[in-house]
């Protein structure tokens, strides 16, 4: 077994959640790597959709932007951006949305807008993009984020996209019928919402990771499920396919 990085196991653990039946709304970065890893390994028939309008795309290298030509060249069809958000996302055609974020709280609400007051930002982040509506229209949401004290916040300065609000029942109270975040895959562990409270709870530790390590990288008191699994280590195929994908991507973007 070859060694692997925390980012690699995060991407691989996320890829394993996906199946041939999924219709995925894919974000750039770690989500894109995970979705394409799944497509190139155990889920060759997965449907990948990027918000630029590309339906059922099969890129050979990871796009740098959400609308690289590679996505359009390898798509079944490409629709306009209003159609993408109206018919496909709001229309309820997407089973799984993949999101990342700059900051997250214990109910999986995300902030990608601002650190500090909105009118006098300490750090201005890019903003929500597609996330506010992805978070409510996809059947369920997977979130990929590396852990850290500045990312896993006790209280978010701004809620860009809805997770489980202030706890169990928040989504329903807002008239949102989808499940919301069901998995948070990090570089150290996997969280899932507690069935009773919807608070993110550790359900799997990556190999060699301790509970103290997770708490040190989280801004709220972490809860652990009664039975915590160990994430199976990446196998040789998963690692080599992921590394080949990144190598092809790097070569393509430097050209």
């Amino acid at each position, binding site marked *: 077994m070859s060694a692997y990085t925390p980012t690699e196991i995060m991407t691989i653990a996320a890829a394993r959640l996906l199946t041939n039946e999924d219709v995925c709304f894919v974000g750039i970065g770690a989500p894109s790597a995970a979705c394409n890893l799944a497509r190139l390994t155990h889920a060759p028939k997965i449907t990948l959709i990027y918000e630029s309008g590309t339906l059922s795309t099969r890129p050979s290298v990871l796009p740098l932007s959400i609308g690289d030509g590679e996505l359009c060249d390898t798509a079944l069809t490409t629709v306009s951006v209003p159609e993408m958000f109206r018919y496909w996302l709001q229309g309820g055609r997407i089973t799984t949305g993949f999101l990342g974020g700059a900051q997250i709280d214990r109910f999986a609400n995300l902030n990608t807008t601002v650190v500090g007051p909105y009118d006098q930002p300490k750090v201005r982040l890019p*903003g929500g993009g597609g996330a506010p509506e992805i978070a409510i229209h996809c059947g369920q949401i997977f979130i990929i984020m590396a852990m850290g004290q500045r990312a896993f916040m006790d209280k978010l300065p701004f809620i860009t996209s809805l997770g489980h609000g202030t706890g169990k029942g928040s989504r329903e109270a807002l008239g949102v019928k989808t499940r919301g975040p069901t998995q948070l895959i990090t570089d150290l562990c996997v969280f899932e919402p507690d069935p009773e409270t919807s608070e993110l709870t550790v359900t799997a530790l990556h190999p060699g990771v301790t509970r103290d390590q997770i708490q040190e990288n989280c801004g709220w008191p972490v809860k652990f499920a009664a039975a915590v699994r160990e994430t199976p280590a990446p196998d040789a195929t998963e690692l080599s396919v992921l590394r080949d994908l990144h190598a092809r991507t790097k070569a393509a973007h430097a050209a």
Partner: protein
Amino acid sequence: MAEFMSLRDAIAANLRDGDSVAMEGFTHLIPYAAGHEVIRQGQKDLTLIRMTPDIIYDQIVGMGQAKKLVFSWAGNPGVGSLHRVREEIEAGRLAIEEHSHAAMANAFEAGAANLPFAVFRGYKGVDLPKVNPNIRSVTCPYTGEVLATVPAVRPDVAIIHALKADREGNVLLEGIVGVQKEAVLASRRSVVTVEEIVADFGPRSTNAVILPAWTVTAIAKVPGGAHPSYAQGYYKRDNAFYIAWDKIARDKAVFLKWMEENVLASGPDSFAAQARRFAVAAG
């Protein structure tokens, strides 16, 4: 009716100080050559509208020509921040009206449809409606459901880059078409740059995206005019430049020097070389 003009004349005739302008193109076909012409001409107090401001608005904002930015995702895709935009917002020097992508896409469509506002299901459980008074709601008269609304986008000017115009002045777009058709139809005036002008579009899908000549104000031929973004079938996205921009834009002095050398002292003809450099192999 579309009029063929030089890029300089097309921008000078259609964009004035204080205008609202949408230079659209969702990653693909971003109108860089036209944006650079706006920088050289120096129109001021612009309200810049774009779903993804991208490097082109980082440049125009960095040159001090914008008073307001209307947007839904202001980053350098896959790379990081738009440093000029970010610095101006953090310093409180640039007014913003911030939306989600779904809201902006719907708002462009409402503009094209000559409606006063767009209605959609969105903005639930989030903070943006607390800081953007233009995000409101309406109750569905049939079901009682409360839905989000935003005002239609009705720019003074739309500026886009397309693949081809024919001699009649009809404009063809293919590939990732974003919201450009909606932006042109929502605007009072429009300037379109194209890769080439052809006698006839030739074989194409009967459903190709076409803007008829009578919906376009001015057309200028600028081969390579979307670089460092791309033109489907012509040239690829210059991803290395998007990565390099991070360093250029991070420091204001480095940025200004780059703009002096590559934009102010340059012209639309410089784009053709970039189109050749990233040309898609003929197939």
